[in-house]
């Protein structure tokens, strides 16, 4: 019910088409021009997947920002929260719709997959795993965006907040972030921060090391963000 309405809502405006077009165009542009897909003479999609975390960082908050902020702005959140339905179902249904939409966007990039198969013989297992990994990473970005969207009725604020939090997760594995913690924080904490890295987990999947831990990471992050989302909605009642 909720999933259906939310999924349909994406297509109620031209936004969905614009988004899908931008996503596919930028993905392909990055793959072919910035990463010199052809010059590498390798039949794989690593140049495509390298860019996904950065693309998602901006595009997933754009999908997720409206989830709750819009309900607040319209006032329809009062309808939802007074229906005899547990808030969990709304949080999950809305996220699932966004997740499915992100999946659809990824499906639209699959001509690339066909292309590399025509050009050579890539490791299709790795590409498949990378698609699953990319989709789950998108889900994690969306869960964060949904969570932050519940804090405000301003979609722009929700977008910016989600980009900032997403950026921290993307950058967590880089020295830029780790160097800031190293001088004073114990090693365990630095390690813990590094292990939150989206890129680190995603890269292990795209490198062909199909690690369950990377999947577990994204899934538990999604679960945690959605749990937090429910807590935020509950806390707002008492505010």
């Amino acid at each position, binding site marked *: *019910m*909720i999933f259906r*309405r939310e999924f349909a*809502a994406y297509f*109620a*405006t031209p936004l969905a088409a614009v988004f899908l077009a931008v996503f596919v165009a930028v993905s392909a542009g990055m793959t072919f021009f910035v990463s010199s897909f052809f010059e590498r003479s390798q039949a794989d999609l690593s140049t495509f997947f390298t860019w996904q975390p950065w693309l998602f960082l901006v595009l997933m908050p754009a999908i997720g920002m409206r989830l709750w902020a819009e309900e607040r702005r*319209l*006032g*329809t959140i*009062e*309808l939802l*929260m*007074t*229906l*005899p*339905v*547990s808030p969990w179902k709304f949080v999950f249904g809305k996220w699932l719709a966004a997740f499915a939409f992100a999946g659809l966007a990824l499906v639209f990039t699959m001509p690339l997959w066909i292309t590399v198969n025509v050009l050579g013989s890539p490791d299709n297992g790795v590409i498949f795993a990378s698609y699953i990994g990319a989709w789950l990473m998108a889900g994690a970005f969306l869960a964060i965006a949904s969570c932050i969207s519940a804090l405000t009725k301003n979609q722009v604020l929700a977008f910016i907040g989600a980009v900032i939090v997403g950026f921290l997760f993307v950058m967590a594995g880089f020295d830029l972030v780790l160097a800031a913690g190293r001088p004073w924080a114990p090693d365990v904490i630095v390690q813990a921060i590094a292990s939150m890295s989206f890129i680190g987990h995603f890269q292990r999947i795209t490198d062909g090391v199909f690690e369950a831990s990377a999947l577990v990471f994204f899934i538990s992050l999604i679960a945690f963000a959605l749990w937090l989302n429910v807590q935020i909605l509950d806390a707002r*009642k*008492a*505010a």
Partner: protein
Amino acid sequence: MPDGQALVETRALIKKFGSVTAVDNVSFTVERGEVIGFLGPNGAGKSTTMKIIAGFLEPTSGDAFVAGHDSRRDPIAARRHLGYLPEGAPAYPDMTVADFLGFVAGLRGLSPRQTSRRLAELVESIDLAEVWNRRIEALSKGYKRRVGIAQALVHDPDVLILDEPTDGLDPNQKHEMRALIRTLAPSKAIIVSTHILEEVEAICTRAIVIARGRKLADTTPAALLAMAPPRDPHVPQLVKTTPLEDAFRHITLEQTGV
């Protein structure tokens, strides 16, 4: 639920937003067949009280019961008995009236067959046929308000909470809305907030006056009229007021110390 038991009950409700006390120790009961008019100046705490009963806000202290169910401890059961029209009648602008009401009915747990039967009834009683397949963003205020009422009635609830159902409607639409509330009244407990005084006389069996979060009066419209201070016939009235307005001003201004 046995008849005679209150369908809505609030006990010493208090709601604070930071240092502001929006609702201050409000208790009352509403029984089946009653239409309660919530009267008060803007910002008096009418909407906040309604939101607490509907379960959208939690009180700082005190309890609210709908059909005997605690709105905080047993929210799902309480909400099943409740139809709520929030202020401004919010709805999804991108949905058609039919889709929107179907969506609410589905979330209310009605089967597809029950939904289509119930929606067919509502199209008639609320007169929505003309706009049935139109998007909500394209509707006039009057129709939007009616969609809001229809949404609250989808599951034929025992308790109806309507926050300013006639606000922004033209006189004919107001009349229709009041007629509708009257026809619904015998089988339900209804709370209507308004700052239009004649509305209270027209449809309510009881009026509760709230100002600055406090309940100042809880009585019949006729008794409310009797609270009007006597007019001095020798003082010419600059602005013509009705006796009910006099009573309202007398009650609310006295308390706020203006």
